[in-house]
């Protein structure tokens, strides 16, 4: 049972409720990327360094959370099948990992959030498959789905062939055709999925997206909304630092969905988070996923807000409102003031903080959309980017063109 209900709108931004079986997610929402399998065994939450610490937050391990409940940071998470082989595991171990669904392991049995199982198209295609210490597996759509389903996911997505901005036209078409063929095969196995099926589309602007949708529709034997529960827009990661292109892609995808009558489907943006999120929500994106919170921590960076990071030892924890920073236990950890701390424990707290910063912004945004006042949305965006010189140009452009024109309503008769 999958449903997506729009409960409020402000301009093109929307707030929704995504229900999959008995789990509900308020959107817009960020799915943090989690690596459930890090080469280890169940007793150690399957290991994975900082990934493990994050899992300890997710499973509410008192020793790492200091007794606090941080599960709201993980209402929905993204995990990729390509990460299964991240630690050079042996084939026997992979089979063992896939022997139980994630929630069937004792250690994850209390986790009650949604699991979005990504096909890992980008990574798998780059490596040519799944590669461990003693095995190499070619991955096609069927094998990808088999592995996804073995995880016990709430959302699955077809194996896609992401395009690249530098692709020649022919190369791009070929990838889109392969993605479309995969989508068709995926749709044939729809009944095996006890949850939501998402369809990936690719493109940076309307003409490309139109082609992507056309190719998929040509391959499918039924209309997209009957085969799929959501749309996932991919291939944006190489362009993650160009917010203008991101906004155009999401906004054009949204328009394409409207024109085809798919506007009731949730739109997920693959691999993007951080400072672009508010703008993408403003043009209608519903969910996101990203590992940036974790990578920032691993690189020793503490998020001051969506735009700025500082080295951990320069962070001012007192000026952060998040629960991680307001907890003496975590502050002591992040300051490296405790005995025998592992690096992964310090960075784990930082990662949780980084994630909290992003989740907090989306929570604010959900409240704003609930008020249904697009002027407030514009104000919020404007305030958020006020000190971001390069960025605010695009934010102001978006506000001016899509939400609230800056100079049109002003009375020009004066003194």
């Amino acid at each position, binding site marked *: 049972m999958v449903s997506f209900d729009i409960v409020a709108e402000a301009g093109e931004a929307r707030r929704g409720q995504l229900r999959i079986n008995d789990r509900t997610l308020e959107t817009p929402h960020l799915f943090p990327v989690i690596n459930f399998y890090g080469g280890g065994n169940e007793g150690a939450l399957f290991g994975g360094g900082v990934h493990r610490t994050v899992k300890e937050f997710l499973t509410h391990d008192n020793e790492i959370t200091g007794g606090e409940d941080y599960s709201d940071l993980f209402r929905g998470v993204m995990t990729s099948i390509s990460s299964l082989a991240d630690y050079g595991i042996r084939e026997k171990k992979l089979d063992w990992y896939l022997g139980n669904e994630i929630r069937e392991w004792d250690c994850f049995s209390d986790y009650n959030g949604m699991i979005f199982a990504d096909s890992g198209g980008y990574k798998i295609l780059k490596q040519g498959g799944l590669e461990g210490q003693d095995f190499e597996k070619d991955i096609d759509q069927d094998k990808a789905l088999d592995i996804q389903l073995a995880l016990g996911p709430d959302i699955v997505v077809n194996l896609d062939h992401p395009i690249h901005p530098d692709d020649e*036209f022919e190369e791009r078409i070929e990838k889109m055709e392969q993605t479309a063929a995969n989508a068709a095969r995926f749709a044939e196995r729809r009944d095996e999925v006890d949850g939501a099926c998402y369809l990936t589309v690719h493109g940076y*602007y309307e*003409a490309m997206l139109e082609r992507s949708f056309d190719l998929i529709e040509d391959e499918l034997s039924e209309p997209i909304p009957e085969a799929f529960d959501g749309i996932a827009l991919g291939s944006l990661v190489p362009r993650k630092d160009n917010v203008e292109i991101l906004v155009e892609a999401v906004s054009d995808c949204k328009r394409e969905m409207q024109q085809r009558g798919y506007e009731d489907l949730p739109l997920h943006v693959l691999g993007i988070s951080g400072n672009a999120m508010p703008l993408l929500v403003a043009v209608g994106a519903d969910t996101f996923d990203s590992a940036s919170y974790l990578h920032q921590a691993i690189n020793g960076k503490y998020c001051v807000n969506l735009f700025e990071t500082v080295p951990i030892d320069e962070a001012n924890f007192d000026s952060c409102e998040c629960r991680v920073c307001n907890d003496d236990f975590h502050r002591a950890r992040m300051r490296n003031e405790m005995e025998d701390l592992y690096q992964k424990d310090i960075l784990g707290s930082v990662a949780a903080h980084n994630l909290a910063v992003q989740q907090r912004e989306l929570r604010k945004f959900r409240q704003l959309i609930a008020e249904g006042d697009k002027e407030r949305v514009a104000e919020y965006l404007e305030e958020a980017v006020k000190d971001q010189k390069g960025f605010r*140009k695009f934010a*102001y452009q978006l506000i001016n063109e899509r939400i609230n024109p800056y*100079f049109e309503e002003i009375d*020009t008769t004066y003194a």
Partner: protein
Amino acid sequence: MHKTPQVNEVNEFIEIASDFEDPLEVIREALSNSYDANATQVDINIEQDDEGRNTLVIKDNGHGMDEDDLSSFFDLGNSNKNDAIGYKGHGTKIYYKSDKVRVETVKDGTRIESVMNQPWAKLNNRELPTYSIDTTDVDEPSRTRIEVHGFRAGQGFDPKQLTYNKIEHYIKWKTIGGSTAWYFNDDFHEMEIKVELSPSIDDTQDPIETDNRLKFPAENLDPDGEFVAEEMCKHYPPQELTVTLDDSRELTVEVVGMVGGKEARNKLPTYGKHSAQFGIWLAKDHIKVERYNDAIGADNEFFHFFFIANCQGLELSANREKIRNKSGDVYQAITDELDRFMTKVCQDSWYQNYIERRKLEDKKRSIQSQESTLEERLQRTRDEGGLSPSNPAEVIAALERYSANGAPETVRIADFQMDDEVNAILETDNGFENAALHVKLSDFFEEEAALSHIDRLICWKLGDLDALTKIERSSYLGEPIRFDFQSREVHYGGDTKRTIPILELADSVSS
């Protein structure tokens, strides 16, 4: 024991008077003082006698001066006008650089006549000049008349360099005469200003008659015609921006401005090099001080803009030429807020449209000039009976093969110029044709090359069809365009439609 630093009063006077180098600053001081005195009319006369000596006469109908006011007028740093424009009380010391200052002023039925003789000569003799005071009761409205005889400034006050144009520009750009206060209504009162030069200085024009309101050229949002961008003009009405400092003090920045093409901007009272005059101005007392063109960023050219951002939090040097507190947080906060505001202006749809239109019109102009050079090239090509290819681009080689392989028609390159938009002249069965020859057709269109004089498009491959479709949807150089990939044609234009055939070589050559 405490000691008070000693002030050498004579030197102080000399230094302050010497701070003022530009003779026009006399006019600025006079206008500010008259405005502070609530005058509604001020007349300035500048005369020159046969021996080159200058006399300035400044008359206003302000509230006049009593003896205390006169002390402030003559004394150093003794002004009681705290919120007034000449608040330092230094401005009037510029009059000391003269042979004689005579003040005649009426306030509350008392007339004072005051004369200071040889102030400059005395100061240079290490002597403080004195002034006389004669008081009489009169029955007439208040007023002030200041005469400055034998005035000199900087390298000597050379009135020959003065013209009405220069003075009017100065009044509107550097004095209360160019005030933007009236847009904001705060304590503004109107003042008529008249400046007359003796005919020996400038007899080319009538005296200047203006007021103390800086006005923008009329709005012209969407003029008719083919080349109109230069006339376009939009006002950005007065806005008060509030800036909060770290210590939670609040400042107000009052911004008003316009965006416009050259014709529009030329209607502003400017003189000399225009590029030095447009852009974003920081102002105090609503008088422009310095430009801060950084506010519009590198993507935009400052000369489209004329904005004045007034903030009383700015502190100026004594001669008002520079902002003194540039390194402080006040300046930082003001300019940050101005950056944000100007970013919004730059994202305004009208502005974007204006820039787009300018670009298009520039393009059209270059097409018109292209026409004549193309004509010449064509003539030359005809005269010489067709040249062999001068540029061994692969596409040309392909074209040769295409023609040699029994193609339906013979197409040969008669002339090729690498960087021209119309880079090829073809010799075909039907005579000469202008062509654009590219490896990928989509490259040609992504470069926004003009189609006007192109009879045919030649490419190795069409290239990125999505990119072409994107162009098709957003219009091309302001005109509708349609790509017919099936029949290899481009349909271009609105009212006058053209069809341009595409010759795609890849398939026909390789098969």
